[in-house]
């Protein structure tokens, strides 16, 4: 990085020390504050820092952080990787990630959906990886149809190679804006945001999953070369090779993330067999899917921020005898509007022991009552464990599904488990 202009180098160093300061003073993991200082000094820094690297930008509503981590893990095959693995996914976070690892040729950056067009222009990445788009924090996020349109337009102006989920119509339509694409059949459980054609608004024909087409304008699902088969836990590579995934992260959503990661790593020249081996090494991503053991009970933490995420989490719950705690807040990072709770179908929780927690637990309570799901109200995880243990001293497991700040509060209460 010695060819960086002095001012950029200085900014980069400044950013780095601010990040260390932030970590040392316990104000956060340092990824945002570092970049914020750096940006003030050199606005073009992101472009300069990106130059000469092979970057992959990862964007989606759900699974960005995990997929970024998966791809970075695969690319470590070649040595150091510059990446924002703690989810600081705006330009300031990208600057921090790149300046912290100035010598890495390969980089994997998680990008906030709104910032993708801008970061795409600034970094000219080798790959843009797109997984899914669905309703999320609508009090402050952009409308997703508008977002897809901006992605599509931005991709049309670069020669970046897109790696995208063909099963999500909105994502596919955005990706079709790019000149080069690799299509992955990664599945789509949540379909409530894609009944209509992104091109003309017609009602999509979706008779046989994962195929979709618009009877009005003819837009249809692109041909895929990669696929994931959830039933058999298998990744199918372009040459037809079938690879058992056996991931240590749960659920179909993570199989989808892994398939996308393998397709991306293949773009960098890594054989999928090797990628899958490396992906199995990951057991937790920034505290997600972590289990902590407290009072002799294994408590598994699932972060889910929106209806599509909750649906995925319900699908990975342990068998019905395992109780589940649902925790919802409505602070700014969560979105102030809890309306989305009504988009989720909770009937799958009937017959399970359910607890509601968090600042908006009354919203959850009414929602569960309406779906005929019995529940109890609680303040804290250890209080729930106390109640459960009093009834059954042999209880071994509890699942927790929480949205963003509720999840962070629980993590903090247990010492920020990784």
């Amino acid at each position, binding site marked *: 990085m010695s060819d960086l202009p002095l001012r950029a180098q200085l900014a980069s160093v400044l950013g780095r020390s601010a990040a260390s300061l932030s970590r040392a003073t316990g104000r956060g993991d340092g990824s945002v504050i570092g970049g914020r200082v750096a940006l003030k000094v050199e606005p073009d820094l992101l472009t300069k820092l990106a130059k000469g690297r092979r970057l992959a930008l990862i964007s989606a509503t759900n699974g960005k952080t995990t997929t970024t981590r998966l791809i970075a893990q695969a690319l470590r095959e070649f040595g150091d990787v510059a990446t924002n693995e703690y989810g600081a996914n705006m330009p300031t976070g990208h600057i921090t990630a790149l300046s912290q690892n100035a010598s890495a040729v390969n980089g994997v950056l998680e990008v906030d959906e709104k910032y993708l067009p801008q970061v795409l222009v600034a970094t000219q990445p080798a790959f843009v990886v797109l997984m899914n788009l669905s*309703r999320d924090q609508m009090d402050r996020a952009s409308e*997703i149809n508008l977002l897809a349109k901006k992605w599509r337009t931005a991709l049309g102006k670069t020669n970046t190679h897109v790696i995208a989920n063909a099963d999500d119509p909105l994502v596919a339509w955005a990706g079709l804006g790019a000149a080069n694409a690799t299509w992955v059949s990664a599945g789509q459980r949540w379909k409530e945001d894609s009944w*209509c054609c992104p091109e003309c608004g017609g*009602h999509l024909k979706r008779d046989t999953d994962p195929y979709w087409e618009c009877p009005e304008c003819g837009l249809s699902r692109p041909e895929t070369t990669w696929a994931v088969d959830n039933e058999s836990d298998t990744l199918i590579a372009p040459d037809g090779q079938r690879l058992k995934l056996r991931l240590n992260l749960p659920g179909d959503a993570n199989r989808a993330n892994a398939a996308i990661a393998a397709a991306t790593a293949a773009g960098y020249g890594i054989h999928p067999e090797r990628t899958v081996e490396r992906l199995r090494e990951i057991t937790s991503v920034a505290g997600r899917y972590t289990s902590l053991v407290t009072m002799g009970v294994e408590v598994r933490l699932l972060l889910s921020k929106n209806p599509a995420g909750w649906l995925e989490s319900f699908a990975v719950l342990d068998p019905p005898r395992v109780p589940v705690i649902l925790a919802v807040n409505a602070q700014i990072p969560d979105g102030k509007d809890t*309306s*989305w709770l*009504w988009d989720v179908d909770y009937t799958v929780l009937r017959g399970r022991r359910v607890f509601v927690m968090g600042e908006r637990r009354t919203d959850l*309570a009414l929602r569960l009552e309406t779906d005929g799901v019995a529940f109890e109200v609680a303040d804290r995880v250890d209080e729930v464990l106390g109640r459960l243990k009093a009834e059954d001293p042999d209880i071994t497991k509890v699942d927790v599904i929480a949205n963003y700040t509720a999840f962070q509060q629980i993590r903090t209460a247990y010492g920020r488990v990784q």
Partner: protein
Amino acid sequence: MTDTSSTLRIVWIYPDLLSTYGDQGNVLILKRRAELRGIPTEVLQVTSSSPVPEHGDIYLLGGGEDRPQILAAERLRKDGGLARAVARGACVFAVCAGYQIIGESYGDDESNPLPGIGILDIRSGRGQTRAVGEIVADVDPALGVGRITGFENHQGRTAIGPSARPLSTTVRGIGNDDRTEGAYQGQVLGTYLHGPALPRNPELADLLLRWRVGALPAVAPSWGERLHEERLAAALR
């Protein structure tokens, strides 16, 4: 209720286009509060590629992004079923984008006026600012509903014509125009309280049921009433 049937028919219009903020909640709460009174219900989901049936009791329209809103309005106008149902005396509850399109006209994403379904005497356009946040309003005393609370997230501003009346007076939030929120005309009611407006306001849900079936037996207060009180307190704090 309609004709010979003793079943309350709830028709959810275009969940594929207008269902962005938990609009399903209104369907579920109407159904639940009817069933608590022993009234059998039937829910019909009508997607944008299907005709709107004319024999429903309560028609629900949800919120949506700009383009789905325009599509929904075009298709509903062409279909004509909703307007015919209203002419037969059906009840309509529409929120947000749905509220705007049942009016005489509404603005597209650049404020060009587009024709609505014309079952509520309102005209909507776009304001300078986006109204986002908790809203509190006092409902027209003639309706016997009291204070309502909800979440608004829209850029619309709505003027109410002589055939309709404001649903409520704004206490907090923007609503139609800073002063009033929502509108009604006969049994057609619209509001900017988006998504689960009825779960958050059990009395408003009961008003719609009363319009169709007459006086309702009281039900024991539960989580809906509690949520209503909690959100009012939080919004006015």
